[in-house]
Structures are given as C-alpha cells and as structure tokens.
C-alpha cells in the first residue's frame, strides 16, 4: 500500500494513459480521482472511450516494476541468422512501443583447437578446428515489468535453434524504508542493544 501511495505522489500532475492490464499485470500509477471499477481510468489526453475488455487480461494489485534498461546479447554461429533475428526483435520492439536505444554488433570470437590427425603417432600431422561465435547486442530503454515480461517471452520463444541469449535487466527501485533514517535515533536508551538488522 505504501508503494502505491508513493506511486500516486510521483504521478501527480503527469497524465497517464489508460491502463491495459497484463495476464497477471501490475496496477499502473494512479491519479487522485481513482476508485473506478477495476482500477481502470482514463488519462486526460488521448483516449476518449473505454477500450474493449480483453477477457484474457487481468489486473493485479502489485505496483509496477520498472526497468531502466534491458540488454539482450544474442550469440550464434551464423551471422545471417543473427541479423534476421535482430530485424525481428527490433520490429517487435517498435510494434510494442519500446524505445530501442542501441543495436551494436560486438566483434566475433574464434576459438581454435589443434588436434592430432591420426589415431596413433604421426605427431607432425595435425588438424585444426575453430568455433566462431558472433554477437549482436540490443539495448532497450525504459520498460515496465509487464511490457518486459511480454516482450521477453515473445522474443525468447522465437529464438532460433543454435542461438543463445543473455538478458541483462537493470531494475530501478526506491531506497527501502529502513534505510531512510538511522535507527539509532529512535532506539531506546539501552546502549549496545540488539543488533539492528
């Protein structure tokens, strides 16, 4: 509840769009004239009519998680596959309204090994293998928890075979309440009291 009140204070004055809920979505920020049915409300600017209710969508009470940046590093053996995947991921992000900050391609890494060509002796004759790993990095900015969950699930389900992905999420949070003030001011006079957790 405290988290929601914080949200309300934060969102004072800024207009918020109509909240679409997610399959288990968090409640969006509130304007003072809340208490509408289902927690849905209309922002003062764009939408003039109530959106059609999607029966699959349900709103939950938890406050929305905020991700300042989502960094997708895709690794694969084939540059063409990664390029196609990057096109797909960028288009999906644009369609869902996510800002793509940067798309860059770190240089490839080649891992080489040298083995003996023959089963027995013939040390001078070897064979060399290499494994090439190509990278593509996609950086997205400013996502909410629901949007991130939806986008990541869509993009991860369509990951082609033989391609790996690392998703780095940077979540932003407020300072927890127990760090706002030093606790020694409020403790009673007992010195060397129980250790504060």
């Amino acid at each position: 509840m405290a988290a929601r009140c914080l949200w309300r204070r934060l969102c004072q004055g800024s207009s918020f769009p109509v909240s679409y809920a997610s399959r288990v979505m968090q409640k969006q920020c509130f304007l003072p004239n809340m208490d509408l049915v289902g927690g849905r409300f209309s922002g003062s600017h764009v939408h003039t009519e109530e959106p059609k209710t999607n029966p699959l969508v349900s709103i939950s009470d938890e406050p929305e998680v905020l991700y300042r940046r989502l960094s997708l590093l895709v690794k694969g053996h084939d540059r063409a596959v990664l390029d196609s995947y990057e096109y797909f991921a960028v288009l999906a992000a644009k369609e869902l309204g996510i800002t793509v900050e940067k798309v860059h391609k770190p240089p490839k890494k080649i891992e080489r090994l040298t083995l003996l060509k023959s089963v027995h002796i013939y040390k001078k004759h070897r064979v060399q293998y290499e494994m090439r790993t190509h990278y593509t990095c996609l950086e997205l900015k400013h996502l909410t928890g629901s949007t991130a969950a939806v986008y990541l699930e869509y993009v991860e389900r369509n990951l082609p075979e033989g391609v790996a992905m690392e998703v780095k999420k940077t979540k932003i949070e407020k300072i927890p309440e127990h760090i706002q003030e030093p606790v020694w001011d409020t403790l009673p006079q007992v010195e060397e009291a129980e250790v504060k957790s």
Partner: protein
Amino acid sequence: MQLLFQRWRQQVAAYFSTPAASSREAQQREVSTRRRGRMSQLIRSHIPPRTERMAVDQDWSSVYPTAAAFKPASVPLPIRMGYPVKGGVPPPKEGNLELIKIPNFLHLTPPAIKKHCAALRDFCTEWPSALDGDEKCEQHFPVEIETVDYVSAGTSIRNPKARIVTLRVKLSNLNLDDHAKKKLIKLVGKRYCKDTDVLTIITDRCPLRRQNYDYGIHLLTVLYHESWKTEAWESEKTEEDMEEYIWENSSSQKNALDTLLQIKATENVSNVTKEELLASEVVRNYRNSVIALKNEGETESNMSQYKESVKKLLNIQALP
C-alpha cells in the same frame, strides 16, 4: 523391392482417385520418393508441388504459422543454396539439406510479427511519462538492481550464473552525514568508486536470485546503520587515517603561526594573538592554497596560488 512396388501402385491409385492432392500427401510422397529410382522421378513429375497453386496475395502466415523446417514444395521462391558444381550454379531447393539445416524465419515475416504484436499489445503497460530522463529516474529511484537471465539450448535450462545480483546506489542519494559517509567508504573498500560516487555490491553467495537480492539489501542496511554509529575507538583516528588533509592542528599551521609570531616579535609590534593571526587574510589564503595542494594534487593554478599566498605571508614582493 516388392514393398516399393506395392507402395508405388498404392500411391498412383490414390492419386487417380483423389484429384485434389493435399500438400501433406505430396510432401510425404516426395519424402518417400527421394530414394533413387526411375519410378520416383515418374511420380514427382505427376504431382505438382503446392507452390504452383499458391496465389500471389495469399496469407503467408497460414502457410508457416509456427517455426517449421524448410519445405521446398511449400515455399514459392527460387532459392539455390550450397557450393556450386565446377562451372555451375548452387544446387536447387529440391532435396537441399543446407536449406533444411539452417534456421529459417519464414514464420516471422513482418506482417506476421505485426499481427502477433497487435495481439500482445493489450498486455503491455506504458512507461510513466514523468520519468523521461536518466536523471529523473535516479532522483526518484536511486537504487539499481541488475540481474542476468540466460537462455540457451542444452541438456539443462539452468545456468548457475543466473543467481548473481548486482546492487548499485549513489551515496549522494543516501541520508549520510560527513562522518557516516567516510566510515561507509572505509567499510566498503574497493566496492566504492570515487569518480562516479557509486557503491556496487555484487552478491552470489546464495543459491537463489531472490535470496541474493535480499542479502544485498541486508548488506546495504547494515552498512548504512553501522556507519552512523560512532565507536569509542574511532577517537583514536590519526593523521594517517584521514582521507583528506585538514589544516587545523597540523604542522603547517604551527609553522606558519610560529614564523609570523617571530616576524612580529622582531618588528616589535604589540602582541598579536593567535586567533587574530588565524583570522587574518594572508593566513586564510595560505591555508586555502595548502589544502588545495594536498587534496587535489599539484596543478599549475594550485602552485601559482601557493606561491602568491607565501609571498603575501612573508611580505616578499621582489621575486617574480
């Protein structure tokens, strides 16, 4: 051989009985007739592939709704792939293993992606418009938690690196006074970066990510509250422990005052007190220049400032 003959007879009979052959049957026939032999070529020439019945403006997302292998009879493109024969062209798409091996994105054409996103848009929420810049984000939400998820194909979907949690916070956003800040920096050691004023805590000692996150928050809380405490032994802090140079009660102050007192004694001026000397402007300038030199290091401006203040202190005008 007997079996093959019977199957061939059955298939030809089936073809003549159902004129509209479905694509799956055609493909099965193609798969089974990929074995070498004249009869297979005869069959293939009889049954046209599905591509010849495809309209130009068809709905492609119903041909490839999900990820599927490349089917040459279902893709109406004249693709060639592979190493060309000497003096020739790459092999065609029929029976081309290279095309089947490589992952294809035929199920993710732009119209298909737009359709999927239109259906998914209902589940997305908007970023609050009040937090449009990094500075605003930091002002309202100063703590940053970084976690990494790993997706790869293998015998196991778990990755032990996924439990690592990195907590970053700027000390200027925490409620700390001077002593608390210095004590926190000493407690934390290498985890604090002086240039960016960021404290980084990386936890991975617990097996689960949620436990590591809780432990990180616990560490931050403990550091914060311990740094506000003043222990009895902290009063024994010596000059070597100090993080920055303090001029009061230092040897530089003593030397300056002694020199000035001696100068005043030789000039037979009436006794000026130490407080008067300390409050005078020349001594103030000298103090500021010495502090700047010690704390910031030697730069051109610092050295010239020190030179000017010493000249004023000792009343030497002659030297340039």
